[in-house]
């Protein structure tokens, strides 16, 4: 058990918490758009669909470097996303079914490639599928740089296309009549989401990435009715969850950092759902009780 103060000085805590905060900020920022676009499940699908890309890159290049595998994962994730969008556009299949179909097919294909790689004589393929699904505690400086760069690019894009994204998510057809082409917007938003997911995979892994994409945004949504405030709050909540999660996982032994972050983020959601002014369940009931009381007083 380390005292809180000495913890701040500790290198690992600094690196992991910084990484977790950055990941929280990115997924909070991009997550807001995914949640509002009702595409939060895309996070989970892309994380699974990344597997074939990873194994293919390994089979082709033989290298297991993070950059190569992340490149493969991004390609695979993007292909899956555009296939899903294509299926919805050209058939009557709904988004969630297309998602489940593409996700399981891609993951199955990844499994096939994995077992094929496993039969190869060289031992380099060991633990390949663990490579893309990172652990928060194993944060390296190089990860921080990747996240910093990706984060700033995503932030810049969000600021540049702020009103286009807002308009596009709210009323896609109206945007079309104002000559903002929906296809360009779809590509932009999908690319941003997939990038955020792949970068996040490195830190918290598959399952937790889809939570981090959604939880901060869902929590932030309860506190405000302005998109700008929601996105800022969502990034903030993402970052804070990352920090607190890392703190909890650092103070005691045997608490994995990724899952701790997710639990913290989910608690924020529950708190927001109950207590957010005007919208939260408890606060609405409290208002109703107050209104009834004043009504009785007057009546």
């Amino acid at each position, binding site marked *: 058990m380390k005292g809180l103060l000495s*913890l701040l000085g500790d290198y*690992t*805590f600094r690196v992991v*918490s910084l990484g977790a905060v950055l990941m929280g900020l990115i997924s909070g920022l991009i997550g807001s758009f995914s949640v509002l676009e009702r595409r939060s499940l895309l996070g989970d699908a892309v994380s699974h669909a990344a597997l074939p890309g990873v194994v293919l890159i390994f089979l082709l290049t033989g290298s297991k470097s*993070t950059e190569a595998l992340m490149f493969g994962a991004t390609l695979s994730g993007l292909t899956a996303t555009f296939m899903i969008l294509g299926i919805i556009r050209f058939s009557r299949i709904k988004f969630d079914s297309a998602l489940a179909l593409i996700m399981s097919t891609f993951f199955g294909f990844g499994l096939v490639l994995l077992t094929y790689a*496993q039969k190869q004589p060289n031992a380099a393929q*060991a633990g390949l599928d663990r490579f893309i699904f990172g652990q928060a*505690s*194993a944060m390296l400086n190089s990860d921080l740089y990747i996240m910093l760069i990706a984060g700033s690019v995503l932030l810049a894009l969000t600021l540049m296309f702020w009103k286009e994204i807002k308009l596009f998510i709210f009323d896609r057809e109206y945007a079309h009549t104002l000559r903002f082409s929906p296809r360009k917007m779809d590509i932009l938003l999908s690319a941003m989401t997939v990038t955020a997911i792949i970068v996040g995979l490195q830190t918290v892994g598959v399952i937790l990435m889809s939570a981090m994409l959604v939880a901060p945004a869902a929590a932030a949504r309860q506190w405000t009715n302005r998109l700008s405030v929601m996105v800022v709050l969502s990034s903030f909540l993402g970052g804070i969850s990352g920090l607190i999660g890392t703190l909890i996982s*650092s103070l005691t032994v045997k608490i994995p950092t990724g899952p701790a972050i997710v639990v913290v983020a989910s608690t924020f959601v529950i708190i927001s759902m109950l207590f957010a002014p005007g919208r939260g369940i408890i606060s609405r009931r409290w208002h109703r009780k107050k209104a009834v009381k004043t009504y009785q007083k007057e009546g």
Partner: protein
Amino acid sequence: MKNKIVIMLAILLVVSGLTACKTDKQPGPLKLVATTTMLADLAENMGKGRLEVTGLMGPGVDPHLYKAGAGDVDLLQHADIVLINGLDLEGKMGDVLESLKKNGRKVISLEDGLDSSRLLRDEENRDIFDPHVWFDVSLWQDAARYVCGRLCELDKDGENIYREQLDLYITELEELDDYIKIRVAELPEDMRVLVTAHDAFQYFGHAYGFEVKGLQGISTTTEAGTGDMIELADFIAERRIQAIFIETSIPPRNVEALQAAVNSRGFDVKIGGELYSDSLGDAQSGHDSYIATFRANIDTIVESLKSEG
């Protein structure tokens, strides 16, 4: 009308699928399938010429994460003898293979043959054992004796060959044991600390007086927390441990992060190279036998830990 055709097509396919594979028994050497590479090597040494040994898991495959291919079905189907590690190393697959004993299929499981008093138990869950028995050469000698005994039972007329091979192999293992002890002796007492990515080397530490620390628990599903990382980094810095080790089947970034943590404490620790944990090396590296792999491991360990800064 349309889906009636489709149904017929499916049934047609099923029937054709079934007839395609017949099971045929050829005479010749007994077919033995071993799950892990270590067991395959052991069987190879036991049954020179009498056994046709195939390993289910290739080199570098982590038994915890093993994904079976379709070919394994035939392998197991046609195997005369199945050799498994047990003690839950192969997970549910191990239990399934073990259950083959009931219907007469010849199965050898180390779990039945090793004296449980010598096995390391998990603190909280008493009846769960650490399966990485091959890291203690003396235990591995017991395993060899047990396997040889079972082989003699199952293949009577090969008995003397097995006995002969056993003695040969035991001497080789003894030589290995001595070699390890000599190498370990080169290390001063307080330097004998082995830090690896996951907790596979307890038996090694137990047998050769090493303190062993793993970043993750035995099963790779667990995730190391930041707290574990910090605690381990403090430990390494205080004890001024010269090197920590990567494992073939675990992403190196975990150990690299540990190294960075230790460096931040002002102590320059090296990554002492790659250890084979849950599987033997591959042919190119020349460490594709148990003895060669263990030698490579011990050399890496001692060389890296010895070089005082």
